[in-house]
């Protein structure tokens, strides 16, 4: 660097001592350098003399503002509109994501007692064979030959281990509520009741034996049973019971107590109309038979006798068939069917299925990740949907801050 480049710094005494010395020596001998130094000094002096010394104002206001800023976490926060808006939006989104499902659930729960009440109001009298009420307009989806009858499907799915008294699905009365209708027995109705249950028990075979004992004690019998105790699989036993319809509900209750009900499906088909129809047709056929018998007693010619006998034979076949239908209907209405699957509990420390723990852990981890993903997606949706609310607020806050600034 040349001496001239450091001349200003020399005059300001901002150079290291060695450099100061160099310049001092140079100045003593160089008149041009001295002249230059004089110019720079003059400019510096002029600047200082011509500079203003502004009058100081606003000290009190500054002190006041400094004092108020101490309590000002929120004030300070409010001064950052973007941060404030982002926090508000996040707060709204979290509250909505948490509160909304609760509201929706409460709303659905509030509906089901109303629907259950409506079901009660709509239901006509009960059958004498079971305590299951009928619902107007309900359709049977069974594959039985009673598909034309009016029937009510009652699907009660149990997913927990807390027994049977949990709330029914929307629109379906619970078993407890149904038992309350027992006093409305109508002896004239023919109802075919069917129940399917899966029960988790300590020992499948023992439970099956107990179930058999219960059913026999109630006057029923075992229609079929089987069990599976294969290695590596959960022991299962299944049995189909025929129970007098009058004790159908009682049998269900007793069977439920054998273990923890996992699933339960109760179906009741009203066969009254069909039975009545069959009975009426049978009556007509019998009356026709009597007429033919009267005609036969009065017949004199062989041809006439043979013709009447043929017709009588056909008629009696129809009567037999119709009577068989009537007896079957009556038998089915008299004896309800309950199919129970006894699923054995897995002992502590033993996996349900060999090598299942890794899959279970993997499944749990994936479920956890998808839950987080769903939650984040839900928040994004809420932020988007609530945009008409938070965007104007953000704009107002931004505008006010800009205006204030």
């Amino acid at each position, binding site marked *: 660097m040349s001496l001239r480049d450091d001349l200003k710094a020399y005059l300001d005494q901002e150079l290291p001592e060695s450099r100061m010395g160099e310049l001092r020596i140079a100045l003593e001998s160089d008149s041009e350098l001295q002249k230059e130094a004089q110019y720079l000094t003059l400019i510096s002096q002029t600047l200082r003399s011509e500079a203003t*010394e502004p009058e100081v104002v*606003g000290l009190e206001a500054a002190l006041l503002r400094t004092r108020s800023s101490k309590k000002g976490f929120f004030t300070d926060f409010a001064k950052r509109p973007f941060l404030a808006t982002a926090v508000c939006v996040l707060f709204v989104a979290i509250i909505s994501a948490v509160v909304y499902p609760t509201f929706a659930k409460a709303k659905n729960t509030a509906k089901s007692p109303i629907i259950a009440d409506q079901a009660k109001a709509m239901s006509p009298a009960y059958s004498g064979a079971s305590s299951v009420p009928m619902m107007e307009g309900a359709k049977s989806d069974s594959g039985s030959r009673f598909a034309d009858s009016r029937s009510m499907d009652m699907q009660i799915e149990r997913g927990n281990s807390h027994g049977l008294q949990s709330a029914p699905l929307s629109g379906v009365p619970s078993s407890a509520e149904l038992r309350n209708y027992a006093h409305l027995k109508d002896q004239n109705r023919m109802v075919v009741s069917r129940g399917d249950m899966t029960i988790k028990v300590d020992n499948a075979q023992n439970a099956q034996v107990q179930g058999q004992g219960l059913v026999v004690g109630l006057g029923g019998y075992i229609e079929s049973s089987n069990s599976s105790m294969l290695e590596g699989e959960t022991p299962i036993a299944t049995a189909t019971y025929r129970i007098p319809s009058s004790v159908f509900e009682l049998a269900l209750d007793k069977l439920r107590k054998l273990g923890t009900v996992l699933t339960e499906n109760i179906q009741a088909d009203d066969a009254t109309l069909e039975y009545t129809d069959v009975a009426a047709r049978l009556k007509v056929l019998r009356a026709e038979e009597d007429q033919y018998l009267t005609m036969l007693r009065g017949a004199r010619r062989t041809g006439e006798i043979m013709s009447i006998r043929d017709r009588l034979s056909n008629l009696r076949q129809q009567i037999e068939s119709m009577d068989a239908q009537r007896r079957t209907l009556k038998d089915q209405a008299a004896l309800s069917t309950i199919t129970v699957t006894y699923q054995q509990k897995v002992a502590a420390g033993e996996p349900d299925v060999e090598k299942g723990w890794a899959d279970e852990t993997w499944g749990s981890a994936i479920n956890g990740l998808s839950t987080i993903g769903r939650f984040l997606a839900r928040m994004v949706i809420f932020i988007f949907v609530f945009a008409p609310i938070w965007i104007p607020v953000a704009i107002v806050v931004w505008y006010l801050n800009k205006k204030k600034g």
Partner: protein
Amino acid sequence: MEELVREHYSLVYRFCARRLGFDLAKDVAQDTFLTASRCLRKFKEEGSFTSWLLGIAHNTCRNEVRKKKAQYMDESFWLNATSPNPEASVIDREALRRALDQLPIEQKEAIIMHEIEGLSYAEAAEVAGVPEGTIKSRLHHGFLKLRLILFAETEVTR
């Protein structure tokens, strides 16, 4: 913090006034102290508090200029409107104003900080956020230009 405000307010206010004028200086000075109070924990005690505070003021002034597109470091903010002693002055005030107008902002700023506000090269470098050598260079080139403009004019006038 109040003590610091009382002690340094005039320095900061004048610093801001020279850069932005009297209208904006009050608000900017207040903002400077608010920022300083928030960031007090970040101040490393081995440095100069004044330089640190003026550094905040410098940045606040720059932000204000950007936000409001205000004039920055106009000569009317820091040069007297009338010369206190025109006869004794070798350099004409108007000539000085014209010469200063031709300087880049960075050189003008270095001149104000050192010549008028009395900051050393090191302090000015800390305030401006540049190395000390840069301040030295800016001052050298600024004065060189002023000398060439002013004394060439003077010589021409004479």
